[in-house]
């Protein structure tokens, strides 16, 4: 295959562009892989986005993909695309640690469903990315691996818990990554790293083989630079898995094909009271401007009021702490010192939550979700801020910010509905700011269509972080 451009431009190609070049035999998956491996070697020592780089596995997969493309027998739009997996996702023969000392030697014998789906689509596993310990809270500074940093400013954090996935995609160390999202762990890093991150409907992507955080709320999600690429990746991983009790059997539509570029006539409910008074002023201005752009593109917008943000946080946190404690009880009792301090001090109080508190929180979840879903009688989409602040400073002495209870991603987690974080501007310090768009259950197509239309009309997503 002939070479296209310099290494820097190869890493600028979207998944969609790479797929077209592979199919036309103008670029080889091996060449693309080599570019990304070189970039990881050069840049990742500053970012710590990867825990493990799977160079040998990737080279074999890239060669197989190249052979298929040369024969004109490509498997589809993801064939030959390098991807990364958050390290709480099991990979056969590849260490899967959840960024924890407890699983430092865990080498699974089976791939997680999402890993096998991407490999089956011809994807090239490039490595495993940093997370918060067992995808909770964070960052912690007392774990076996350092926390990932933000490529827009190495003195800041990339959010989390899918921190390495967000950092790596933004820094153009990999074009696509899978994260997991229980209360916002795909959308928060997507927001503060300036990429697109989709938490689909609960049950849309199997969690089999993913280390659990909160069974009732765990999702896998897609993280890419553009919304259009999110759609391609979702198409590769969505679908029913009878071995995941949370999986739901619903047909998988053509997500990429649904990106018409038009949102004319879509009705959008704006939940401004979750961010209007509490977010950083630059976030408020950027989100309000993005909503203005969606109006220009033909959407109608009406401000609505849902339950206070704190209600969702109370219900979600009670459910999560109860389930987390049940998952980690034995280790917390037998070897508490093997956990990072942050996880230990968050989760251990879950042992004192009463059964009736857990049930009440689940009942409250029903009430809050029912109220929110009722708004879809009048609206096609809901919108709010992606995150309330620019990326937090990387300061080991900083107070635990979760105690501030300003997690704007949690309402859509609790409701289990698809929600997308889209870059919509930058702070005066050059840090990304984001919009969040949510839709009806299993209507990822409309959510993605709106995000893609916004990106077609703006150019925020084309900017590169300094480290890239």
């Amino acid at each position, binding site marked *: 295959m002939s070479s296209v451009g310099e290494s820097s431009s190869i890493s600028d190609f979207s998944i969609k562009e790479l797929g077209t070049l592979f199919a036309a035999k103008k670029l080889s998956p091996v060449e693309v892989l080599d570019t990304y491996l070189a970039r990881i070697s050069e840049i990742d020592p500053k970012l710590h986005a990867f825990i493990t780089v799977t160079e040998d596995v990737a080279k074999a997969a890239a060669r197989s993909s190249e052979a298929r493309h040369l024969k004109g027998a490509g498997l589809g739009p993801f064939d030959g695309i390098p991807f990364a997996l958050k390290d709480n996702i099991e990979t056969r023969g590849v260490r899967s640690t959840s960024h924890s000392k407890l699983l430092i030697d865990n080498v699974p014998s089976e791939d997680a469903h999402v890993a096998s789906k991407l490999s089956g689509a011809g994807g090239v596993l490039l490595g495993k990315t940093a997370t918060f310990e067992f995808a909770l809270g964070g960052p912690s500074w007392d774990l076996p691996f350092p926390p990932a940093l933000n490529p827009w400013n190495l003195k800041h954090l990339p959010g989390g818990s899918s921190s390495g996935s967000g950092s790596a995609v933004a820094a153009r160390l990999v074009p696509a990554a899978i994260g997991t999202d229980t209360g916002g762990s795909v959308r928060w890093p997507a927001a503060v790293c300036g990429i697109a991150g989709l938490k689909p409907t609960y049950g849309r992507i199997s969690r089999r083989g993913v280390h659990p955080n909160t069974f*009732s709320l765990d999702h896998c999600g897609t993280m890419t630079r553009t919304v259009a690429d999110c759609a391609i990746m979702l198409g590769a991983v969505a679908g029913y898995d*009878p*071995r995941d*009790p949370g999986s739901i059997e619903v047909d998988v539509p053509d997500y990429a094909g649904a990106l018409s570029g038009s949102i004319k006539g879509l009705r959008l409910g704006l939940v401004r009271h979750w961010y209007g008074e509490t977010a950083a002023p630059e976030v408020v201005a950027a989100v309000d401007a993005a909503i203005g752009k969606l109006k220009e593109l033909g959407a109608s917008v009406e401000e609505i009021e849902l339950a206070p943000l704190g209600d969702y*946080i*109370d*219900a979600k*946190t*009670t459910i999560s*702490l109860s389930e987390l404690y049940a998952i980690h009880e034995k280790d*917390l*009792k037998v070897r*508490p010192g093997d956990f990072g*301090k942050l996880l*230990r*001090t*968050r989760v*251990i*109080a879950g*042992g*004192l*939550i*009463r059964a*009736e*508190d857990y*049930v*009440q*929180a*689940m*009942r*409250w*979840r*029903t*009430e809050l*979700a029912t109220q929110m879903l009722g708004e879809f009688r009048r609206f096609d989409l809901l919108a709010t801020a992606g995150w309330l602040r620019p990326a937090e400073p990387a300061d080991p002495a900083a107070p635990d910010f979760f*105690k501030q209870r300003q997690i704007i991603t949690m309402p859509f987690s609790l409701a289990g509905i698809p929600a997308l974080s889209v870059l919509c501007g930058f702070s005066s310090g050059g840090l990304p700011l984001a919009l969040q768009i949510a839709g009806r259950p299993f209507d990822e197509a409309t959510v993605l269509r709106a995000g893609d239309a916004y990106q077609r009309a703006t150019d925020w997503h084309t900017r590169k972080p300094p480290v890239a």
Partner: protein
Amino acid sequence: MDRSPASREDIMAVARVAGLDLEGKYLDELIEAYRTIEPMLLRIRQGRPRADEPAHTFDPRKFLPRD
């Protein structure tokens, strides 16, 4: 409903019943962690209609043998 914060002794008693026989710094961490979540638990403990069903669902077909 009792809405007064639990004392250190209250928390230690509940922890013992839960099998959390912690000592030293781990016990201090537990006390601090519980004090962080206690206001949330007091908000959760509100009356609900008897028929309000929790968000859990159980589909027995999901657990059929798969061989």
